[in-house]
């Protein structure tokens, strides 16, 4: 069973781009972990403070076209360096989406209604999310409320998550 779980943060904006996830000025880093402190430091979102708001977060919930822009895998790496291995969005840019699975991470597409519920649920305590990849089910908990959301991944995406990435899979098969 492949599961991911943790505390979720809603970034309530569409078209969050790769420059906002990790600015190009840090692409001079060869070591992925050095990217960690710079995650989303240029994000254009009212009231957002990356240092404070991203602390302890494991799951991002966001809107349309997340990860548009550059092909840089530094974007998923910067997330991973901060303990974030799941992004749930209304839609993703192609390269970012593939990069997530290539790294053995999880990008899940949900409809607007489900995203609305996740974004609006956070009250005094944050939303906790648990993802069961095999069952194709997200369990969300906010205060006393718990609800489940089904999602679908293709066979390829599941295989990459299970294998922990694309390199070993490809080297074995091609």
């Amino acid at each position: 069973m492949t599961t991911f779980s943790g505390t979720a943060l809603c970034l309530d904006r569409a078209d969050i781009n790769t420059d906002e996830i990790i600015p190009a000025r840090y692409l001079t880093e060869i070591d992925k972990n050095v990217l960690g402190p710079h995650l989303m430091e240029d994000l254009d979102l009212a009231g957002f403070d990356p240092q404070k708001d991203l602390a302890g977060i494991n799951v991002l919930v966001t809107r349309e076209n997340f990860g548009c822009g550059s092909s840089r895998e530094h974007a998923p790496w910067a997330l991973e360096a901060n303990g974030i291995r799941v992004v749930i969005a209304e839609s993703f840019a192609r390269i970012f989406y593939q990069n997530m699975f290539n790294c053995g991470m999880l990008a899940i597409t949900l409809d607007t209604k489900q995203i609305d519920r996740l974004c609006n649920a956070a009250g005094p305590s944050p939303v906790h999310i648990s993802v069961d990849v095999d069952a194709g089910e997200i369990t969300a908990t906010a205060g006393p409320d718990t609800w489940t959301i089904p999602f679908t991944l293709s066979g390829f995406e599941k295989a990459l998550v299970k294998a922990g990435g694309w390199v070993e899979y490809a080297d074995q098969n091609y």
Partner: protein
Amino acid sequence: MGKTIAEKIFDDHRVDQPFDGVTVLRLDRVFCHEITTPTAIQDLVARGKDRVFDPDKIKAVIDHVTPAKDAKTALQGKVLRDWARRHKITDFFDIGRNGVCHALFPEKGFVRPGFVIIMGDSHTCTHGAFGAFAAGVGTTDLEVGILKGVCAFKKPDTLKIEIFGHLQPGVFAKDVILEVIRRITVNGATNQVIEFCGPVVDAMSMESRMTLSNMAVEAGATSGICRPDAVTVEYLWPFIKDEYPDRDAALADFSRYLPDDDAVYAGQETIDVTDLVPLTTFGYKPDQVKPVSDMAGTRVDQVYIGSCTNGRIEDLWVAAQVVKGKKIAETIRAIVSPATADVFSKAMDDGLIKIFMDAGFCVTNPTCGACLGMSNGVLASGEVAAATTNRNFNGRMGKGGMVHLMSPATAAATALAGTIANSPLFAQQD
């Protein structure tokens, strides 16, 4: 059922279909630069897989930060350089011979209609101008490409964008692609290939088609493909003349990749550009596009002419035509970066460099430089750039900076005016 260009290329290159909807394709080219490749190299070394599938099909360049600006970027260059030597990569372009990847690789004749090309760079879609399926990928896909010469793609649907009418003087390919992105939005072609066609594209030079294809990714597209034709053959002829008895034979061969008349498209846009005016962006998204005249008078601190979108000799000619014999505004810093060593050399021979320097431009060596705020030409917070580049994201050319995307003609006119301005090449200026 007929096929699109991408479908024909997929059929030609299919290695496997491991899962429903996923095709593993054989790669004709893997392009590399010093920003995204060193991490792939290091990971391959760490995994004990320091191999390359074919040193002739892998091409590498140091282009994003060149000359190196500090110890870190020097190390990135060194990792790529050492790897290229270790594996006898046939074509590796270091300082002095280098240039912006998507300008350099076509110029060296590395692209053919029907090719499948990947690179760890989102603007790899530029090479679609030649009728290739060329896509930007992340470092892991790049790593597998280097190691095995394959890449997995979900079969993309094709969006056909037909461009007809007549471009007015002073309106260019850059304005056309900004109009396309304005219409279909920044995710209008996500997981799709754009096929650009119609008489306006047919009449475009390869340089202009590259400008068009280059920004396909700004609408989310996997690739932006133009139909190979006599213009494509003519551009490639110096590189293929030993492969074909004559140009007609090359054209006949390339025609294999034309879409069938009954090809099935996921969508279609038809754009009449007869009334199109010069355009510029106004926000942090490439689909926030307005006529230049609506933005006239907007303060600009720096003008940048260059990049994989508009740093080719055709672009420099247009910009030089606007600035010839004039001086840039006192309040402006203007930078021109010829995209490759060859473009620089031609610009010298043609007298363009002198025109730019006499006007007050700073001329840099070929590099991606200012475009993504990594190297020379970074903005200070609160500063505004008018640039011929492809991306206006928040902080793109420097934290707190604003970038307005435009054609070389508009950028040159803006350098002279000191604020956003239409070029005198555009007849209907206000």
